[in-house]
């Protein structure tokens, strides 16, 4: 079966122009591929480059060399509008932090990806209601902006938003961190449903049990750390 996400020979360094032009190589020879319906965990110590690799997949960091393909979009070298179209339709991302325009009600925040992908207001709201209820976000909060919510509530809103549109590929950055057992189970259920409908998933999970439950494979990114490769 054709891979949905393909990474080959990707390298990355940071050049700090205002600190004497220091060059910090962080990745070399990164390679991975993820098929539809598969969940791959990125593992490695802090600083090994898990988040860096994920951010390059999302087009948030620029890769210096190599190739990144998500569906038929070549992320490395894509125009901004191609990346934006990919983020609307193909690749979802559940980050660790919620970033929203102040004052926008939670229901709209969660419905947004459905509308961005071309869904109706009604379809977006229905999906948002369903997800917020499943993630146990109290209904009395739905009309309020999530900017004032507790950390755990914000994270659940973030997860609801990430799963609102049925993306064919997804990136999950610690989706179960700081959740209680009930909500953790809900999130793992959402991940399993996404896999069942054929989504290709790349995730970072510090929660080893969660990883064992939903991930099919692990990729140790410290293999791609330049010092060790050299």
């Amino acid at each position, binding site marked *: 079966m054709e891979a949905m996400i393909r990474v080959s020979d990707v390298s990355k360094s940071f050049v700090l122009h205002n600190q004497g032009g220091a060059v910090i190589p962080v990745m070399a020879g990164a390679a991975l591929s993820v098929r539809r319906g598969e969940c791959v965990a990125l593992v490695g110590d802090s600083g090994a480059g898990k988040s860096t690799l994920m951010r390059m997949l999302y087009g948030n960091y620029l890769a210096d060399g190599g190739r990144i393909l998500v569906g038929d979009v070549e992320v490395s070298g894509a125009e901004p509008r191609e990346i934006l179209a990919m983020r609307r339709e193909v690749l979802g991302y559940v980050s660790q932090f919620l970033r929203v325009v*102040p*004052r926008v009600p939670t229901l709209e925040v969660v419905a947004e990806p459905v509308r961005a992908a071309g869904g109706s207001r009604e379809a977006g709201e229905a999906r948002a209601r369903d997800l917020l209820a499943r993630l146990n976000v109290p209904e009395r909060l739905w009309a309020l902006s999530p900017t004032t919510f507790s950390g755990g509530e914000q994270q659940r809103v973030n997860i609801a938003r990430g799963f609102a549109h049925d993306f064919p590929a997804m990136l999950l950055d610690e989706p179960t961190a700081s959740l209680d057992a009930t909500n953790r189970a809900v999130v793992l259920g959402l991940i399993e449903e996404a896999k069942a409908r054929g989504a290709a998933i790349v995730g970072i999970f510090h929660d080893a049990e969660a990883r064992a439950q939903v991930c099919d494979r692990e990729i140790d990114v410290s293999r791609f750390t330049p010092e060790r490769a050299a």
Partner: protein
Amino acid sequence: MTPLLQVRDLTKRYGARLGCGDVSFDLYPGEVMGIVGESGSGKSTLLNCLAGHLAPDEGQVIFDTRGDGPVDTLTMSEPARRMLGRTDWAFVHQNARDGLRMGVSAGANVGERLMAVGARHYGDIRAQAVDWLGRVEIAEDRVDDRPRAFSGGMQQRLQIARNLVTGPRLVFMDEPTGGLDVSVQARLLDLLRGLVREMGLSAIIVTHDLAVVRLLADRLMVMKSGAVVETGLTDQVLDDPQHGYTQLLVSSVLQV
């Protein structure tokens, strides 16, 4: 897809000094582009050249007009360019007083734009003005007040209503949230984001506020000393800046 705006090698000099040099980019329908840089970097000069308020020394600003397709607006006749300024283009000034008629009522400020494109029925004009004032959260009972009696945030919202009432396709904004306190800024951001989404607007926003561009702009252009030093997807430029100046700009933001 045809770009809505194609800018080619745009250069403006003030005597021996460079205002902005060799700027080129394409803006597609529905895209919001932010232009950031410190004071004096040439971002307002560029915006004014694009909008036809300043005559550049070299270059082309090609707009995809409704009637005739892509046309270089710099070689267009003056009446044709003025017509564009009243219909498909809008310009939101940093200082609302520059974009409003302070001596006439709020309703008239909005209605005037409609009359400029041929509306004549008083009842329709007033109804549309009230509708637009509502969209920017100005109560109907303030429609006959003059902008002088409005707060800074209200004046800015009125300016936006006046600009968007004719359904433009391209909006130029010069520091639209500058000089407003943060709670008013948030309200304006929410409003602008909603309007851009609903009306499918394209916009070019000049600002020095990186938080504003992160929330509003799809793409970013970073300027320094009149030249574009970096372009790209907004979050990519802010999170993984490549140019030394952009790195300085991003790392200089104070965290709250």
